[in-house]
């Protein structure tokens, strides 16, 4: 490692001393790109190797640095000046079906210092668009703005978008009616809708599914791991739910209506009951939203902080907002879990006197009003839910049983042997799954494009990445088909937009279509921006000096 760096430095020195043309800037330092280990993230690792290979062809000296997630996130998040480029990913979640979270939080200048805009992208023009789409309640006009945001990002390339991966799930088609499986756009078939509608064909009526990671908590006031959300989305109702098409639908609400710029009126569904038999009241709903901002549930606070007040009139609940918010239904009404006041009020009161907050409170038996009731939780082994037959959208299955299986190979083996009948998580090679299904005959595999995405984040604070032309060139240097084929084995869609094609309403197709890639394209962009090649080493334009020391 040392000797390699030394060699690089001395070659660079040699070049500077011998043949530097009078007008060219300094040679660009060795740039470093971070990735997680191959064992943990094979596709990411492979992508970065391929990208580094292409960048080197432009005359850059590229060093791939492998770090485990804890260290990588520590550097990227807490040492925002200390890195050049890093592989990163966003995962799909139902509430991300509304583009606001990504459009705003990832790129708005207000989140650059401590929030998710860790790349330090600052563009007043973009800020204006991001703010405008947030407030625009008219859907068609908002779509325009979201399209515009995607175009600005395509022009500036603050990140190098790589792909939207395809997720593969499978189920036993001799147990479940394939027609009853719901494919939610951008999420895949593992979703709440599927778990409600899966119809048994024979005697087996339990959905038995797997997850690689442990369940952390079943707590309606704590946003914990991804797996946890599968559970609490079934146990708790929300006023709205994101539908299979990615758009919000009334759920525990009979209707949701915008009655003004800043007012939304919700009519609560009649006859709903908590799992302990008590009726669900508008007061419970009000309590649920107030608890989110009570200081005892900090992770939910951002989703309810825009609410000025909540008024109750019979079964009508009116939300008055501080600011107009287009994504309110998706990001608040479809996000906040409805919790029983008679259970949680004493708990919250007690917690207010203590240091811990509600995130640390695990109920023995979580009480919700959702389509499944909590039965049993065996630490790190399984969670059993049973169908709530009184629910307005009662599941067709009897039970929902989540098994924790950290070994990928075992998960596939269990699916084939019938120990599980719904493969809800598969960290392995999708082709293996498809082959296994073809061989087995009882299995059906469904692969869908995710709304999540993989990308290379550029540190927009550090030269040369502060130059949009440089970023554009680096991004253009890699044909995304290479990433799709050689890193994702075909199970991904090439990307140039933060909005996945799975979200067809918001996705700006032109941005992806018009994106030209290839080594020549990149070289041309660099040349036009004044970068020069000296020998095989790329130099800054004009008389720009290298301000960052070789690391």
């Amino acid at each position, binding site marked *: 490692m040392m000797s390699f760096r030394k060699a690089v430095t001395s070659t660079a020195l040699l070049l500077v001393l011998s043949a530097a043309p009078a007008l060219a800037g300094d040679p660009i330092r060795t740039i470093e790109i971070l990735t997680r280990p191959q064992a943990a993230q094979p596709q990411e690792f492979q992508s970065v190797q391929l990208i580094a290979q292409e960048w080197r062809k432009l005359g850059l000296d590229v060093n791939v640095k492998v770090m*485990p997630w804890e260290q990588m996130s520590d550097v990227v998040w807490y040492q925002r000046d200390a890195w050049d480029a890093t592989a990163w990913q966003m995962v799909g979640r139902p509430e991300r079906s509304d583009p606001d979270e990504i459009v705003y939080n990832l790129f708005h200048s207000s989140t650059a210092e401590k929030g998710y805009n860790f790349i330090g992208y600052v563009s007043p023009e973009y800020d204006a668009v991001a703010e405008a789409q947030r407030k625009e309640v008219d859907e068609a006009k908002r779509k325009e703005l979201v399209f515009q945001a995607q175009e600005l990002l395509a022009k500036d390339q603050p990140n190098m978008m790589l792909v939207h991966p395809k997720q593969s799930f499978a189920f036993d088609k001799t147990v479940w009616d394939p027609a009853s499986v719901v494919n939610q756009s951008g999420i895949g078939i593992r979703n709440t809708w599927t778990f409600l509608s899966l119809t048994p064909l024979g005697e087996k009526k339990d959905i038995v599914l797997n997850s690689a990671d442990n369940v952390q908590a079943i707590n309606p006031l704590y946003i914990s791991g991804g797996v946890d959300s599968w559970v609490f989305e079934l146990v708790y109702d929300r006023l709205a739910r994101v539908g299979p098409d990615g758009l919000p639908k009334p759920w525990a609400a009979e209707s949701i209506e915008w009655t003004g710029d800043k007012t939304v009126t919700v009519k609560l569904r009649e006859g709903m009951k908590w799992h302990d038999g008590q009726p669900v009241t508008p007061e419970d709903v009000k309590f649920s939203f107030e608890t989110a901002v009570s200081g005892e549930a900090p992770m939910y606070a951002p989703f309810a902080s825009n609410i000025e007040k909540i008024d109750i009139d019979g079964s009508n609940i009116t939300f008055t907002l501080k600011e107009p918010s287009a994504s309110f239904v998706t990001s608040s009404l479809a996000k906040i879990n409805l919790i029983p006041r008679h259970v949680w009020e004493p708990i919250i009161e007690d917690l207010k006197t203590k240091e811990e907050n509600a995130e640390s409170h695990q109920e023995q038996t979580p009480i919700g009003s959702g389509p499944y009731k909590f039965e049993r939780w065996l630490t790190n082994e399984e969670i059993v839910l049973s169908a709530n037959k009184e629910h307005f959208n009662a599941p067709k299955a009897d039970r929902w049983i989540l098994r*924790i299986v950290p*070994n990928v190979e*075992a998960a596939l083996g269990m699916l084939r042997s019938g120990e599980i009948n719904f493969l809800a998580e598969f960290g392995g090679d999708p082709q293996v799954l498809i082959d296994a299904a073809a061989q087995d005959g009882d299995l059906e595999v469904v692969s869908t494009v995710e709304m999540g995405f993989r990308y290379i984040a550029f540190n927009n604070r550090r030269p040369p990445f502060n130059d949009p032309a440089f970023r554009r060139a680096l991004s253009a240097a890699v044909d995304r088909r290479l990433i799709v084929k050689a890193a994702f084995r075909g199970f991904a869609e090439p990307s140039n937009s933060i909005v996945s094609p799975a979200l067809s309403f918001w996705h700006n197709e032109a941005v992806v279509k018009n994106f030209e890639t290839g080594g020549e394209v990149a070289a041309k962009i660099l040349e036009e921006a004044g970068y020069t090649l000296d020998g095989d080493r790329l130099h800054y334009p004009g008389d720009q000096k290298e301000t960052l020391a070789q690391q």
Partner: protein
Amino acid sequence: MAHLKAALSRTLQLALVLWAVVTILFLMFRLMPGNPMAAYIDPTFTAEQQEALMAQFGLDKPLWEQYVIYLGNLLQGELGQSFRYREPVAERILALLPNTLILTFTSLIIAYAFGILAGAYLAWRRGSAVEKVAIPIVLTTRAMPEFWLGMVLLAIFSFWLGWFPAGGTRSAGSDYGGFWGLYTSPDFLAYLALPALTLAIYSQGLPLLLMRSNMLDVMKEDFVTMARIKGLSTWTVVVRHAARNALLPVMTSFAIAVGYQLQGNVVVETVFSWPGLGRELVRAVSASDYPLAQGAFLLIAVVVILMNLIADLLYSLLDPRVSHA
């Protein structure tokens, strides 16, 4: 008096070792790079949330203060709260401990039962062709990576032959109403079989070789020769006299093996989706969940230290030549 003094010095020693392990643990987790808050990075993660989290877990205090608090809590049996699960660490690891102990003891009992019998047999058949083949095989089993062996057994007995389930401790959704109900059910035994077998194959080598060499030792001693001269059958000599005397040191090694096995479980628990302490430790470490990782580590360390102590005591009890020097 001498006994009291010895016991006192033993206790002091134990306390010293415990304190040192606890301190090493604390420093190891606090001085390593990586921020535990990194686990919560999310587009909606705000600066206020970060600070609140740091304060909640006491991470905003200076290191020495954290250490003092940590020691104080430990003395009260308080292991802190898990970052990830937001629940008391003690509760969590104690819930997982029985699974790990059952797996450990089952596999060791199988390993020792087999190892002792086979070891005695091989000593008896010293120099035979069986012995010539068996010893290298035994050595080879100890050279296999446990997870590799586990994966191969999984492929053969579960995926291919379908004799045993592939992971967990019971079939999906089954309820045995409590501790004993589960651990005595045939269902549980079927799930236990493969992981226990994997560990047993790995650990039978030690008792086997130990038993064999002890037997060879004992068989040379006078009383065995005497018995032989008395005209007792070889079988009686081997079983009644030699084996009984050779057995004691082997049983001492059982205590140490428990400690070792507990560490080795980490890998096998991952292969067979066994909800145990080792898997939790690995997960906690990779999620930078310091309190949980520390707690799990500490619990394993305490068992190891206790088992070492038991082995020591047994040893000095069985072999009066070992003094307290």
